[in-house]
């Protein structure tokens, strides 16, 4: 009985110290990762800002007139097709189903 109680207490202490130690290690790792992420996040933000500016509709329209001869055209929704797969067969159908009264 005595030994069992001691063994339980000892194992509890050991387990607690092991858990605490590993938690501390993980916390340190998380801190390090977070610290490394911070400058990357800032860099990503700057790159994304540049990307958003260069790919903004305004800029794209400007590039289109500057570098391409053909004009942009509106897409007729009635010409858009939908591709679906059924029983290993590819089915191409109209994206918008034609309405009877139209």
């Amino acid at each position: 009985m005595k030994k069992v109680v001691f063994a339980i207490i000892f194992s509890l202490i050991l387990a607690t110290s092991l858990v605490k130690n590993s938690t501390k290690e993980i916390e340190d790792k998380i801190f390090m990762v977070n610290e490394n992420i911070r400058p990357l996040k800032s860099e990503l933000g700057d790159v994304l800002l540049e990307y958003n500016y260069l790919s903004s509709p305004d800029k794209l329209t400007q590039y289109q007139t500057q570098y391409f001869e053909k004009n942009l055209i509106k897409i007729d929704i009635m010409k858009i097709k939908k591709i679906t797969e059924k029983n290993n067969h590819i089915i191409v159908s109209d994206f918008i189903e034609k309405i009877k009264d139209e």
Partner: protein
Amino acid sequence: MSDKNKVILEEYENKFSYKKSKTNLNIEFNRIAFIFFVFLIISAIYSIQLLHLGSLKIQNETKPLVTKKNYRADIVDRNGNYLVKTVSSIDIGINPAEVINKKKLLINLQLIFPNKNYKEISKKLEKNKYFYFKKKIIADDYEKIMMLGDKSVKSEEKLTRIYPQKNLFSHIIGQIDDENNGISGLEKSFDEKLKQIKEPLQLTVDTDIQFLIREELIKFHSIFRSKGSAVILMNVNNGEIISMVSYPDFDLNKRETVNDVNFINRATKGVYELGSVFKTFTVAAGLEEGLIETDTEFLNLKKKLKCGKNVISEYDKKIPSDLTVEQILIRSGNIGSVRIGQKLEIEKLKLFLEKIGVLKKIDFDIEEVGQPIPFKWGKCKLATVSFGHGITTTPLQLAKGYAIIANGGFEIKPSLIKKTLKDNQNKKRIIKKSVSKKINKILRKIVTTKEGTAEFANIKGYEVGGKTGTAEKAAVGGYTGKAKVNTFVSIFPTSKPKYVMLVLLDEPKTSEDYIYKYKNKNGSYKGTPFNTAGWTSVEVAGKIIQKIGPILATKYIEN
């Protein structure tokens, strides 16, 4: 030693007989129990602390962060594209009191910044008052100027907002002052939040759609030479505003003070008398109260009505005298609408308009919101309100009203801030589903039938429905006659409405050269014959839907 003493000692020895009992074992067991108890207490304290720390962490996550002085969160659109980005910049100032050798400092500065006016800087140095030498300095120049090692040169880290979409969201986003305080738009209404939140503030707007709508508005601004225009595109089911454009607008990057009234946000701040678009509400109120049905006939409708000083007449002189409720709305009959209004009486119509939120100031995400002009209800007021005159509201509130009618009668709150799915649940029905269905059908007929007033919005594949409204602008002592506000509120697709789009043209003029292409028949027409919504706003709406429709249909597809 006496015998007496001996006896006492023996007696004492006999009484003290602890050796025979299990005293030792008891002591040992108590000790173990005590140690165990101590450990139990320690572990209890430890676990309590762990639990406490755990709860603290959760609390911290929900607790707003402390406001940082030099911080402001970015703003992104619904797809995560930057609309506003904060970058830190450095301003360089000079404190003349700390300058040791003025001549030397000026020569050094001239080498780094040769294009500056050094006569003026020399004068400033004489004044002995701190001044900014250069704002928003670039990294290379900053390094060079700090290499001088002059104590009088001071650097200050400042916050700068960059707007990659320039004019596109000027009215929505608004501006900030030099002290990092929002002064208009979302920058003002979300000022505290923007200083606290870690992640960017996500809006409901779509940059691509906003751009396409603005492009069309600019094009038609020159065709119809309007004073200004506005478009609102909103999801009828959750109130998310996908696009909100008010033209003319301004480039936020220029940081100019905008005082011209013509630059107001017409979509939210502009308060207008919007005309026939209100007839939809009169009919919906009649259907809601069960006083009329879509096929209820109104016979012997007069061509003119007199109410006090006002004469109410029909715009369309060819309008028949006998009309059903559906025909009244399709042909936009004024007298028929008055008759429906009279059947409803003041209280019922007022209650309906209050329910859909067009009478009072709307609670919105930005502070630039107009206040509908209050008025006194009476017999004549009831008559004019029935066909949309003598009553004012903002375009945003009108779009909201149409969204409620279109979505099956559910209450919505227009919003610019992206919310979670949870926030959009718990819908409250305020109008009967049957009323919504009936109105949607009529709105579709306004676009598809030849009697309807919105043929140019009949774009194939989108099932557009809607109502036009042409109103003369009110002036002192009456109406101006020439200056008009032309509005078209559309919903699409009418079989299962998803979007409401409002197009408002402020004081448009007719165009002599614009070529209209008929949608319900072959052929085209050159020039604008009438300065009405049907020939102006509807055409703009049609062109916008043609452009944004494929994006809306494919990008926001619901599975």
